[in-house]
């Protein structure tokens, strides 16, 4: 992977949380390289650390989180070295924006859409107050929302989940960021609304050349949108590759099982792969490869040493001793 086209590079990121039971290492050395203009999927099960990775990039972690090691290089600059004030002024909104799973809790119920978006426009646009409405309408139209003039004067409770999520995207577009982090944006939506949302994102991708880190547990959504995918397991990236390559040729045993446990048009329950055991609790993670207790190909070394993240080719990296 050429260094020049990397917009974001996460290097050996370690994040832990202080909890009542002790320190939980949510991320244990995460490496990611996001190319300019790409849709990069981050997939994994509950608690694998995908949301923590997203929130670390934009530095919106909870108070009990500690970033213990690593770098987050955005356009070559380490975001972890910036002050909170610099993050707020220069990075959040201007450069990197994030949308969350539940649009209902991301919008303020006591302000109408126009005033919430006007705040964004005031902060991120050098525009006269008279032109706010035009900018807001334009942003709302770009996510294919109908009847934007009346929509602007509505309150969040008057909109459906799908519309609220599109308003969130419009708000994010109004900041005009280079990088969008989308954390399970369609999980709370119905399939028909999700399908409309996917279409809008696909069109925006072509129009705006946006770079997106797309966090989800849904492989089907990844296959609709992403060019690259990283698979996470128990706080580590286990495999990164081009999206098509991962679907065709998953190398890590976990990635392989995950792909085969997804409900698709297979009609037979017996064909679905099972992964024995459960996701380990990170308060006391397994030694060596964290997947080894559930892996049917594990050998002695897997329980002893952490597998290095090695390149199979320029575009395909995997952390597994059996390869």
């Amino acid at each position, binding site marked *: 992977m050429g260094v020049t086209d990397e917009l974001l590079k996460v290097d050996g990121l370690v994040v832990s949380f202080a909890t009542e039971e002790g320190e939980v290492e949510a991320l244990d050395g995460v490496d990611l390289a996001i190319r300019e203009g790409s849709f990069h999927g981050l997939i994994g*099960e*509950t608690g694998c650390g995908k949301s923590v990775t997203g929130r670390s990039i934009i530095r919106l972690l909870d108070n009990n989180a500690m970033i213990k090691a690593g770098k987050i290089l955005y356009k070559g600059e380490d975001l972890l070295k910036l002050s909170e004030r610099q993050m707020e002024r220069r990075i959040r909104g201007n450069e990197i924006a994030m949308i969350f799973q539940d649009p209902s809790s991301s919008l303020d119920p006591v302000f109408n859409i126009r005033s919430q978006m006007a705040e964004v426009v005031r902060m991120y646009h050098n525009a006269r107050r008279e032109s706010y409405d035009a900018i807001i309408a334009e942003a709302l139209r770009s996510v294919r929302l109908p009847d934007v003039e009346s929509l602007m004067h509505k309150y969040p409770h008057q909109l*459906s989940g*799908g*519309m609220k999520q599109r308003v969130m995207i419009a708000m994010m577009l109004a900041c005009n960021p280079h990088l969008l982090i989308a954390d399970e944006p369609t999980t709370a939506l*119905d*399939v*028909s*609304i*999700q*399908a*409309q949302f*996917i*279409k809008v994102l696909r069109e925006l991708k072509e129009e705006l050349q946006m770079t997106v880190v797309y966090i989800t*547990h*849904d*492989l*089907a*959504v*990844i*296959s*609709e949108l992403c060019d690259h995918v990283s698979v996470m397991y128990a706080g580590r990236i286990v495999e990164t590759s081009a*999206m*098509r390559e991962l*679907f065709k040729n998953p190398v890590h045993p976990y990635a392989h*099982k*995950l*792909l085969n*446990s*997804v*409900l*698709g*048009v*297979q*009609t*037979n*329950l*017996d064909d*679905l*792969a*099972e*992964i024995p055991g*459960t*996701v380990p609790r990170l308060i006391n993670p397994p030694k060596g490869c964290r997947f080894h207790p559930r892996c049917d190909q594990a050998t002695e070394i897997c329980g002893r040493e952490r597998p290095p993240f090695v390149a199979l080719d320029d575009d395909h990296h995997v952390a597994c001793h059996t390869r």
Partner: protein
Amino acid sequence: MPALLDVIGLTKHFPSPSGAVRAVDGVDLQIHRAHTYGLVGESGCGKSTLIRTIQRLLEPTSGQIIYKGQDIAAYKRAQLRTLRKEMAMVFQDPHMSLNPRMTVFDILARPLQIHGIARGKDALTLRIVHLLQKLGMQSEHLVRFPHELSGGQKQRIGVARALAVEPDIIFLDEPTSALDVSVQTKILKLLENIRKEWELTYFYISHDINLVRVVAEHMGVMYLGKIVEVGRTEDILRDPHHPYTVGLLQAVPEPDPDKPLGELQLGGEVPSPVNPPPGCNFHPRCPHAWDVCSQMEPELRMLSAEWSVACHRYGDDARAAPSR
């Protein structure tokens, strides 16, 4: 053979300041013994209300629920207790449906005691351990509290609680939607094995067509309080007839990069059940709607012995209307 459960014209309306919320609005369905039925629909279509009303956890507004030949919609309060032993339910979110202050033993002992199936600590323990083993758990879990269990283990307890009373029919409300995919497969396989062994009848509700595809022999599609299409799962998924079913199937993304979502037929959003559109509920979103659709409500008509659709395109009046 008569159906185990025969629901006829069931409605459940909730009062609201702006008029009745027609959550379930004239539903007919039959479920046969030892079969699995899957009901698919988007959020707010009334599927959860429907299965709660069938179980008399909600009072039906009108309609009949013929269960083993008796209309349980007319049951008095005292008669409901026998029903609670025959119909059980597995809830969507195992994190919310288990009492956090009760141990696994207490959670599973409750239904056994209430229905007098087992009495005394020894008899209860014996039965509960047997149940746990059936679900791939061990006696060491007896003393655990829900927060000490993983999501998959919690849902196994949810299933064990439903099985404890040895019901005839189990209603499963999105039993795997709160679980990760790797856990989902195991729960589904476990449920299927138990169903075969105990000859149980399952009634799944889900928003996930792919889930219904793998578990259910027969399926129904619900939209805004009504069933719009019902039949063998295989038939409907191969050749959906109702425009809503067609649209819904098109909107489901495939986990295959070579099969991207095509042109979407299903635009707009589900209207409010307080003031549903006249005629066919679906006509404002339907790409094939013609005049009659906004005037007359289509009945559920049989296409074949096991396949019915509520759409004017397949009715007698279709001849008079423009070709599709």
